[in-house]
């Protein structure tokens, strides 16, 4: 039951895939689903245990590396493992519909992507964090280039080059940290970060900001992101937007609060988040490609999360984490439904929303859009209102006005799609949603509605996470191996 299994089980699975493939595609798919299911059940088991949990590797933390699970990472663990289970079921349909020769390798990269992201949120050692950063990087480059056509390869190359630039900056930052503080353990770095000579600490923070900011798609550095979404297949897009982007966001704010940077850089991060939100919502207005449109909407939502998470008040942060969870679920819902649509209508133009006739898909898309916009009965509303309430309590009215105005712009393109779906004129093709997808989309939609009507279940965990994020005292105690 130790935290190490989150990384070691997928590693064993991916090493043994050639043999699963030999035993036939059923065992391959079954074992991949079983793996993600086991990890999901394990994370649910962790919700009942007292946090923070720790599992050490070879020696006690300040010297060795350890996986520490506190409230903040528990929430993300649940999101990641849940999305893994959903997408692995979805892939059953995807590979049944367009069978591919190297399907086994997809499962390798899929499971390692999830394991890497979980590693990123659990590891309490900055160099180990960099290794998982690279694992997630490599998996996402290959997954985005998976179907080897001109678009996929181009997105793979672009993602690789941007990823390598980001990793250069992060390696440089780790080296400077090691030179200054003499260790790579996050607990010790957090303790001694204020002793570094201010100029060098500005440099380190800048390098980490550029490294993780590029990957977490902040404004001046996210010109590459829509191309990746356009080039890769929809289920991979779902993973990118609900798992990978969230992992980088997690690390960005984990270090932001651990190193105590919120006092100096709060305004800067909030302004960058606001610009990201504004620019991506406006560019989403005149998109003709559906995948690019939802990519910009993901960038926009990340912008809001950056704005809300950077405030030091646990109210807003817990609201932002709630919004983050509901955004992951609804974005996963939309991308999976989009995959079905694109498969049947063979085009990724926006007009496909007007050419399909399926009551179930219309309802699913409507729920997804309304939840992202933050319309009452759905979970997005609770998230948005918590964020606004947090901003109001800290009397930050300009942020409230900004979020509301720009989300009207966001409503324009979402409702344009809804209007096209509901429009009865024109030739319509019936889209047949497979049996598996039917259940998956129902589960996701039900989750959105449940969190909308009874948010107290999720708010308990987001409050836990918000407190664990803002004052990581017990995380530091475990990271320093005190009392182990």
């Amino acid at each position: 039951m130790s935290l190490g299994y989150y990384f070691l089980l997928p590693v064993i699975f991916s090493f043994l895939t050639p043999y699963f493939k030999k035993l036939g595609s059923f065992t391959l798919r079954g074992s991949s689903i079983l793996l993600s299911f086991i990890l999901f059940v394990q994370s649910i088991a962790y919700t009942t245990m007292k946090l923070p949990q720790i599992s050490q590797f070879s020696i006690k933390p300040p010297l060795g590396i350890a996986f520490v699970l506190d409230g903040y990472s528990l929430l993300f663990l649940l999101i990641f493992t849940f999305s893994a289970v959903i997408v692995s079921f979805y892939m059953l349909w995807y590979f049944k519909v367009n069978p591919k020769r190297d399907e086994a390798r997809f499962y390798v990269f899929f499971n390692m992507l999830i394991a890497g992201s979980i590693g990123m949120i659990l590891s309490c050692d900055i160099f180990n964090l960099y290794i998982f950063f690279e694992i997630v990087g490599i998996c996402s480059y290959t997954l985005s280039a998976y179907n080897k056509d001109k678009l996929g390869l181009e997105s793979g190359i672009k993602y690789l080059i941007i990823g390598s630039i980001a990793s250069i900056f992060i390696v440089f930052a780790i080296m400077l940290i090691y030179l200054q503080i003499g260790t790579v353990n996050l607990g010790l770095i957090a303790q001694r970060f204020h002793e570094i000579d201010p100029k060098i600490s500005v440099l380190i923070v800048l390098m980490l900001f550029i490294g993780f900011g590029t990957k977490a798609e902040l404004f001046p550095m996210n010109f590459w992101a829509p191309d990746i979404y356009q080039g890769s297949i929809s289920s991979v897009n779902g993973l990118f937007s609900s798992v990978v982007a969230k992992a980088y966001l997690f690390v960005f704010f984990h270090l932001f609060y651990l190193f105590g940077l919120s006092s100096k850089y709060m305004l800067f991060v909030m302004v960058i988040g606001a610009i990201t939100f504004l620019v991506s919502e406006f560019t989403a207005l005149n998109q003709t490609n559906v995948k690019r449109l939802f990519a910009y909407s993901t960038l926009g939502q990340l912008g809001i999360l950056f704005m809300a998470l950077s405030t030091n008040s646990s109210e807003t942060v817990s609201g932002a984490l709630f919004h983050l969870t509901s955004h992951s679920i609804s974005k996963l819902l939309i991308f999976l439904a989009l995959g079905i649509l694109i498969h049947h209508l063979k085009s990724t133009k926006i007009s496909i929303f007007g050419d399909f006739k399926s009551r179930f898909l219309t309802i699913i898309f409507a729920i997804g859009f309304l939840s992202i916009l933050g319309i009452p009965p759905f979970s997005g509303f609770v998230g948005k209102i918590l964020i606004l309430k947090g901003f109001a309590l800290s009397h930050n009215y300009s942020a409230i006005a900004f979020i509301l105005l720009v989300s009207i712009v966001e409503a324009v393109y979402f409702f344009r799609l809804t209007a096209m779906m509901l429009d009865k004129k024109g030739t319509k093709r019936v889209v047949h949603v497979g049996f598996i997808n039917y259940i998956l989309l129902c589960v996701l939609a039900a989750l959105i509605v449940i969190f909308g009507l009874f948010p107290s279940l999720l708010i308990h965990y987001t409050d836990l996470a918000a407190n664990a994020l803002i004052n990581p005292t017990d995380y530091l105690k475990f990271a320093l191996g005190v009392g182990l």
Partner: protein
Amino acid sequence: MNSIFLLLNILPILFLYQFGGDLHVSFSLTKDFTLSLIQTPLGTFFAYLSLISFLLVTVSQKSKKLSCNYYALQLLLSFAMLIIVLAGDFITFFIGWEIMTWSSYFIISKSNNIDIKSLQKYILFSLASAFSLIAAIVISYSFANSFDFATISASFKSMPFDIQLTLIILFSLSFFTKAGVIGLHYWVVDTYSKAPDLFSSILSAVMSKMGIYGLFLIYGNIVGYQELKIMFGTILNGTDFGYTLAWIGVATSIIATFKAITQDEVKRLLAYSSIAQLGYIIAVIGFGTTYGVAGALYHTLIHTIIKLLLFINVAAIIAQTGKNRFSELGGLIYRTPVSFVMLLIGIIGLAGMPPLGGFASKFMMYNAAINTKFALILIGMLFSGAASFLYCYKLVYGIYLGHPTSKGLETQKEVPLSYLIPQIILALLLVLTGAFPGAFVKVINPILTQFSLKALPYDGVGIMDSAVGNFNGLFIMSAFVAFFVLILLLISRIKSKAKNNINRFDISYCGEVPSKDTSLHYGFGFGTELHRIKFVNAILKRSTATFYDALALQTKRSSELLSRMYYGNIHNTMIIILLFFSALFFIGVNS
């Protein structure tokens, strides 16, 4: 299918009636969101208003074969309005508000002559109003630390003046959009005219009243009229705030009335007329005197009844003939006499002529204006009231009088019964409110006490009295009926030989004989030459559409500009990242 939903509509009425005014339910969503429903007199008034109109519209939808989820959405809409009206705190209010928005959005999208542009207009304006509402709620939460109406209104006085002002502006903006005040009515006309025929009756009769309820809630409960008087001071004999609001209302009604006169489409005329009538209510709502609030409430009731009546009537005609323009309709009086009588009663009520309820509410509103000595406002209201008679006449003449323009019209049968029953009930209601205006006083008094205003004196069910004088509704109605019956006998006594041998085309004395199919239906076009009047011409030419289209164009242009940054050349993206790094480096290092 229709009958099941009919029963489902009756259920809430009985449920509400059974509670009798002290319903208090609270359900805690999370630790700091408790949703609560409280039954205030104002709430019950509007609840009964909306539930009864939903019932009547469901009855009228009997003949149209509507799908099950249409009814479900309509039920959800009525449930949402119930939540809004009975909400005890702002979160429930907002949840009801948004569910109302998107459920009505899905109903409107089911109509077959709706296009994406007007759907977008509708949803964007409603969302804009909802977002300004949530902004106001959240700001007030930041000062009151709770969403409950009572605590917020208690802590409202302690807020600094500029916060109070922003709150009032935000709340009023969001409710004005819903009620369709002149600057924000861009969506109203298109949505009402293109929505499914019978649903536009709900739209105009009930949903716009939610905006009015919101205004009452804010000015009456949350801020309180005394607080408004203290905040903004007084002018002549009324409050400054009331005066500005009155000017907005009067402007809305005058402009909307003249716009209504020139419309050719029936439903667009009705849409403009509902904006105009709401303009009256908004003009009077801000006065903060007993007569102001009473007049507004009375006119809300009357307007709902009339708009339901007119829209159902027009919907029936459109369903029957398939045409919705005055130029295509005409001469239906012989074919559908009952609908004509119903429309006639509706017109009399709309124009505010004595025997029917319309006069009572207009009387009360004029009294309010007189009472607060806002002379110009009174003149404006009288002017637009008189002008409104023009489009009432156009409505009657265009559809029923004049000559049938097309062959089909001559063979029309009477409108099916399911349309007529609700119209008859509504007409009876109008007659009752006309005959017994006093009865309404008993309904309004608890609301006035809720707003801590002086209650209206109640002397007899037939008498409505005001500061300046009173009139005995019953006496007028009985005199009118007696006089009407007398003339009816007189006419029927004279063997009306004239009717059957007059041939519609026997107008050869001016030397030209119109052929069989030329339409002699000219009367409806009299709005067109209004342009010659300079003042009216100024109104008709200018429209808010140009402003909003320009706004949409600017956002589109700026989005194209911004999206040019994302043109996919990875080489330049790398350079931008490196430049961003060096810029931050130079700033960071030497700061």
